[in-house]
């Protein structure tokens, strides 16, 4: 079975330095292969290394955490423009609770 990849916001991303994470975010700026994004808890992260185009306002980035503010992209999925980062943020917080470790193993 493929290993779990935790869904993160800015705060929880810090626990996974060097590991693969799923980061849903709002795209702020695309600039020469680097994408500046806002995380679900209003943090700012730079996504590097992506090749496919970013479309729309939101994206789900799967990548490796390089440092507290940078993610090396493996792949990304463009999300619908009505995506709720607030609801996603609540999911991230819940998925990291011990009570639900059997469901997420984050």
């Amino acid at each position, binding site marked *: 079975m493929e290993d779990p990849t935790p869904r993160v916001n800015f705060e929880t991303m810090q626990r996974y330095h060097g590991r693969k994470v799923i980061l849903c975010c709002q795209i702020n700026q695309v600039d020469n292969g680097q994408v500046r994004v806002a995380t679900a808890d209003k943090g700012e992260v730079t996504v590097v290394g992506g090749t496919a185009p970013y479309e729309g306002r939101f994206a789900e980035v799967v990548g490796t955490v390089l440092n507290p503010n940078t993610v090396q992209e493996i792949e990304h999925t463009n999300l619908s423009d009505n995506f709720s980062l607030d609801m996603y943020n609540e999911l991230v917080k819940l998925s990291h*609770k011990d009570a639900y470790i059997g469901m997420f193993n984050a």
Partner: protein
Amino acid sequence: MAYGGYGDGNMNLGASQFGGGGFMASPAPGHDNQYGGGQQKGRNQHNSLRAFTIRHLLKEIASVDDEHYVADGHDISTVTIIGKVTSYQEGPTRVLLQVYDGTGSIEVCSWVDDMDLQAQKRIEWQIGKYVRVYGNLKTFERKRSITAFAVKPITDHNEVTYHFLQSIMQYLHLTKGAPPMGQSGGGATPAVGARTAGGAGAGLPHGGYAVGAPVAAGPAGAGDIHMDLKHLYNQPHALQAPSGLAVEQAHSELRKIGRNYTLQQIIQACEVLAADGVLYSTINDMTYKSCA
């Protein structure tokens, strides 16, 4: 097959439907809810539909045999997952997908015997796209998979978030009982970590609820809504009224005896009782009479 309140016959469970979506709160773990099967009597017993994370499906569910499974103490029949397609294999009569949701990966087998349909599926079920799967869990040679009868592409990605929240909510509902919604203060102690902010999204309780304390044993005003409604609708005045009682009347009469359910709870509970053949609707969808 009935899916209770979780979708119509076409399984159109888009994100726009998650505001309510027919979730029927029940007071006791597994009691009378349509995703905790095995403890229900009657036609709902084998028609439960439950949302899972893939990890939960693969690691936390006990199998009775290759086709019967138990999760959180309840039989499961139909399951639904959401994930990204990571692999796509076409055969003469079926398509094999590998679906990954961030918690785990599972094989999904979908029988497609129409070549045109298969071509359409090739477009809809592309690698990297999110899909929702409805199907039954199977085990073959100790490997679990889902035999799907519906695989739908996701167009609104809030549905992905909603699915995980729904999985958590159903897990909690089945293991700890329904949340005491509409409490006026009283004794329900919010569990640390169980309370979420108001923007938590559909499916989560608005208030906290005591960890490990089923609502049936909770503060005054909670009670067993289905029992209360059955009792009310079997009162002489309700039986004798030509059209029965409207849900607003039921709401008002229950409040008089200290049962502080919200109108929405009563509406949902009446729908469950109607589906179970205890009540039937009369002049409109909001007025019921007892079948007794």
